[in-house]
């Protein structure tokens, strides 16, 4: 299965770029979700849940999602999931516009490891 990663987490870009196509941009959590939504609208298949992690949207600044490398048929379930994820994200105020370095590192690490956990589950 060929995948691409959409992320705003520099640690994901650093650790996974050799193995996967990683589209990294320093943008907000919500902007990552919107970018993912736009890809889903174009028919890219959503493979990981956009609200992974129990640290809430906007409480952590980082989000990584993986999708198919090529577009296919529009998946209405994925449209529902990403739209609900954006609605959910909007319920949470941005908590740490400028997190202290140790916390920032933990947020990056948690996002990376949740992503790696999901990637390790790919069986096809």
């Amino acid at each position, binding site marked *: 299965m060929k995948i691409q990663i959409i992320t705003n987490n520099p640690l994901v870009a650093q650790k996974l770029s050799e193995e996967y196509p990683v589209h990294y941009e320093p943008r907000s959590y919500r902007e990552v979700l919107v970018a993912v939504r736009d890809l889903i609208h174009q028919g890219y298949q959503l493979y990981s849940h956009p609200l992974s992690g129990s640290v809430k949207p906007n409480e952590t600044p980082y989000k990584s999602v993986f999708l198919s490398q090529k577009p296919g048929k529009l998946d209405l379930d994925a449209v529902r999931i990403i739209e*609900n994820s954006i609605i959910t994200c909007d319920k949470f105020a941005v908590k*740490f516009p400028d997190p202290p370095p140790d916390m920032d590192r933990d947020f990056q690490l948690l996002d990376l490891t949740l992503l790696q956990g999901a990637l390790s589950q790919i069986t096809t």
Partner: protein
Amino acid sequence: MKLELGYINIHDIQFSNESKIENGVLYVDKAAVEALVLEDEHIKTVEVDIARPGESVRITPVKDVIEPRVKVSGGGGMFPGVISKVDTVGSGRTHVLKGSAVVTTGKIVGFQEGIIDMTGVGAQYTPFSKTVNLVVNCDPVDGIAPHEHEHAVRMVGLKVAVYLGELARNLTPDEIKTYETCSIKEGFEKYPGLPRVAYVQMLQSQGLLHDTYVYGVDAKKIIPTLISPTETMDGAILSGNCVSACDKNPTYNHLNNPVVEDLFAQHGKTLNFVGMIITNENVYLADKERSSNWTAQLCEYLSLDGAIVSQEGFGNPDTDLIMNCKKIEAKGIHTVIITDEYAGRDGSSQSLADADPAADAVVTGGNANELITLPKLDKVIGSLLPIDKIAGGFDKNMLEDGSIMVELQAITGATSELGCNCLSAR
């Protein structure tokens, strides 16, 4: 399977030069507990303290809460596959230090959460203000990775709970409760007129710091399966989850699952409690599809009339919850889901991150976004430093008088999706 739980009622913990239980008091040899904890090469320092109901004490950041138990007879030992050999548990006799708990604390990641207040407003929201708690506060060796730290503190909590539980091995319980499951065939024969109901427990399994273990196996790696509800009372399921304080299931809740308790109470009266299915909450969407397909198929295979599904966590698991509900309902099985809500501070926003018309019977543990003010307490066990960083806390949330404003999500067990909490609409 038949399991007897022998309750040894504990109403106080005191430090002593010998660990023992006498007249409902758990005496703890502090030095022995510290030595046990420091056996772990990942732990640099440890402080052991006591927090009693009503005391002006705040414990934070809480990692896990564990009830001390000991397996007296029947196969296996407590926490099989992790502390004890991986024998099947859930039968025979288990002694429980009822009224007491081991609480582990220590900063594992910067934004980790979990507050237990032993008095004041906050105490009303957590069930662990009513237990007398032995608090183990650990600091790790330098340079340790968060997942190694989590593992070390997880093992410390279990080992201390087992050490204390062992003190009750030869005691006479104050009360004995008996739980007995019957086979599929026996159930059909004994209760032909009663609705067949099973419990589906969803286990947190998203990854680092969000894990649950079943007989030592990371629940991320399981496929949905059957487990005897009595196995959970002997620690077959335990928590490796140190975030999401309000709606994570500490190990204590797995040992004392109210859904299991209530289904047993109704078994043979209003329903036939057929059994329990465990499933996971993975991040990978194909896993969600696979697990929910499998869960629904097991429900059909058991010829159920009804299923109760409990969730752990919020957001990503909402999708698993709705998938499970839709697919079980589609099999013609009435399904009730147990969840909690993130409905905004005023409660007016959409509660879940997913929904479906099939989810027409919902029990809620409460709104985790609700804001409360916790008074300043005299003593803090652990550290107040992360209090503005925890989920549910926020920047500058510590007020001038020392009180703290938090959302309910910061309080351990406040909106438990097993019903292990204190909120009610009654």
